[in-house]
């Protein structure tokens, strides 16, 4: 694949923006449009852009994340979020909220649904990224 320098530059600028945007989408999901899915997808679009710009091998070197393993951590988090409800409320997946008020920042809303959404975020991110990178690998081999 031919990758232009300009494209690489754009991607480098875009990446942090996309990543922060995706986290924001995930966190606000409970109240406004957004959530783990969308967040994860946006984050993975960053990885996709990187893959297109640098090729899968370089992305692996730079990110040092094994997405195939990461997704199982995401699944563990999802299960954990379910178990929180089971242990505290006695109902699997029951919502459990913890809302400490922090001086100067305001009220934080932490809860098992948020944990759940985080798990979903991680899974969607890592699944999409690993699929795209596997496919891109194939393209690399083809070029050889």
């Amino acid at each position, binding site marked *: 694949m031919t990758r232009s320098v300009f494209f690489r530059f754009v991607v480098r600028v875009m990446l942090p923006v996309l990543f922060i945007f995706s986290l924001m989408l995930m966190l606000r999901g409970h109240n406004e449009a957004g959530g783990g899915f969308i967040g994860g997808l946006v984050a993975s679009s960053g990885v*996709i852009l990187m893959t297109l710009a640098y090729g899968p091998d370089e992305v692996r070197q730079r990110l040092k994340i094994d997405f195939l393993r990461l997704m*199982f951590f995401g699944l563990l988090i999802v299960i954990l979020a379910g178990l929180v409800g089971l242990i505290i409320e006695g109902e699997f997946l029951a919502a459990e909220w913890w809302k400490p008020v922090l001086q100067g920042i305001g009220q934080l809303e932490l809860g098992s649904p948020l944990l759940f959404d985080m798990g979903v975020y991680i899974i969607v991110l890592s699944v999409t990224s690993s699929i795209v990178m596997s496919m891109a690998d194939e393209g690399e081999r083809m070029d050889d």
Partner: protein
Amino acid sequence: MLLFGIVFAPAVAALVLALVPRSWLARLTPIVPAAIFLWLAATQVGASEIATAQLSWFPSLGVSLSFFMDGLGLLFALIISGIGTLVLIYAGGYFEKPADLVRFTIYTLIFMTAMLGIVTSSNLVLLFVFWEITSLTSYLLIGFNHENADAREGARRALLITAGGGLALLAGVLLIGVASGTFDFLTLLTNPNVLRESGLYTPIALLIFAGAFSKSAQWPLHFWLPGAMEAPTPASTYLHSATMVKAGVFLLARISPLLNGSDLWLYTLTIIGLITFVYGAVIALRQTDLKAILAYSTVSWLGILVAVQGAASEYAAVALAVGVLAHALYKAALFLMVGNVDHATHTRLIDRIGGLARPMPVTFAAALVAALSMAGIPPLLGFVSKETLNAAALYDGLPSLLATLLPVGVVIGAAFTVTVAFRVVYDTFIKRAPADSDLHPHEANPAMLVGPAILGMFSLGLPFLLAPVLDPLISQTVTAIRQTPTSIHLHLFEGVNTPLIMSIIAVSVGVLLFIMRRPLIRLLQRMPEFDPTGIYQWLFFKALPDFANALTIRLQNGRLHYYMMIVFASFITLISGIILLARISLLNGDVLADFEWRIAVFCLFIIIGAVGTIFAPTRLSAIMIAGIEGSLLSLLFAIYGAPDLAFTQMMIEVVTLVLFVLAFHFLPDAFTGSKGRAARALDFAIALGMGAMVTVLILAAQANPVAEPISDWYIENAESLGQGHNVVNILLVDFRGLDTMGEVTVLIVAAIGVTALLRFRPSGQPRGQYYAKEAPAPLQTELASENDDDDEGSEGKSS
């Protein structure tokens, strides 16, 4: 409760033997049936009470482990245990390898339990269970020497025929249950007309006939029995002559009080039985294998045992009881004799042997007695049997057709039986051996002589013990068959009467035929034979596989296109059929109420895009158009108040496009596979049909709501229960979190799948290139032909 012991003792012995497979233990097992025989003979013969035993088994179905020992069961149980003892003793000398002896003994003991179960069960389903187990053990015994293809074939044939009959019997038994509400024989007997009065009498009777006839080798289902002669001789003796093949006869006798008396019963049994009798006797004569001769003569005798039951007279019952006993005694002896001859000369072909009387005197003596009994020569038991049979054939309650047919048939069949009996003994023992034969015969070992000797003694001795031994037993049996208390007094000689004259005619003719047997046999062998084996072979090994092959190759033809067409066509047919038949309304008035041009045009664009994917000239353009479709759809979602949906759809769209491009960027850039115009038109019709169905389904669902949606609850409770404002998100992570859990699982599995598909390849499939350059193998038309491309291990290789 002793009945349980009697029935299951052999099976327990088999289990012990299976756990301790030693030949000395196998040699001890005859003790079990011997004990059963002695106990039965000592306590049950002449007993006034019928022993019963019952245990609950499957009460919901009305099946219990209930046994009873009436006269009919007793007669058979004595034969089963008595001959079983002798056969097991005989086997101890017959088998050379200890492992074979153990295996044979295990099978035979299990068979013994099953057979005892058949004759003592009072529950019909229980009877059927045992019935099928005898078929299975018979299968294993016929295929005992399974290295031999004939043995495998014979075993399969026997099982297919008897299992087929078994299925009919099962249906019959279940129909009895449906008609009467019980499977218990003794309960059924309290109202013996219950089946005759139900509308199901004819099917029940026919199904029971099918079961009994297949088991008892009645013409034209008899042909499995000669094939069963591949079994080791002790098994043939026991199963295919003395006991199992009589199970059908037993079943008819057992069920007779419930079903007899109709024309169906009378004519079917008499005519089929008579045909079998004459056919078997005649065909037996043309055989040259000693076992085949005996097998056909067994078929013949089973025929007459069925035929006499048609009229259900007292004479018939007596003839049946004495006939079963006499036949078991002499035929078992003859079979064991064949085993000895086979052992000594390594051939069973009657043309290849002769003059065995001197080297094998004991065997000869036993065989002679048995053959004379078979021929019905006084004063042997066979003679008594023949007399009772003739009397039954002359029963004056028969309709005129049968009144002539039966006696004539009996005499003809009997004459041939005489000839066969004489031929077997004469040609084996007395006639000089052929000049070119190289026989070194020797007398069999003692274990193999016990059986024939004892059986001979019974055939010879019983006629002189009629009053003390046989009369009570036969009386009990007849009482059980007819369900009316009867007292029978048998006589060896009753004066000169019609039965005796019939006997004399039969013997005379038989002797005459024996003298001219050589031309007769040659004539018979030249005659065209109606052999159902050919039909069976054609049906099961030609027609059936050919049809199955042709059908399967047409249906399962490997073309995904055709599979999808069938699925879609089924969908269209079923759904449109139901909508038309059930008159589902499609329009509820306001489908156009909130019509907006803006949206209509928008929808039109989507439709144009969809059609565009079809006409897109290249792969890339098709993918791009599909991407635009997704974007339009997400806009539509946005317009109709679904921002999450719109956003997700949009993002997914981008990722999908990237994947498409990555995956198919390197493939040859041309669509293939388009076929002719007609095929295209059919595809088009199916596609349009599916689309129309979707449209109709949406309209139909909206036009016929039956309940209010539950969704208001979510909006009302989202804030209080879900602690958030975005109801869709709360649904996903709170209310319906399990869905989401399943969904992310799908994603994870998909990621594993993609990685595995792309990375894990069999050796020989290099990555990143094509290896099937040329066209694949041409269509196969023969399923049976070997396709080595598809062989295991080489599946990955390039074609």
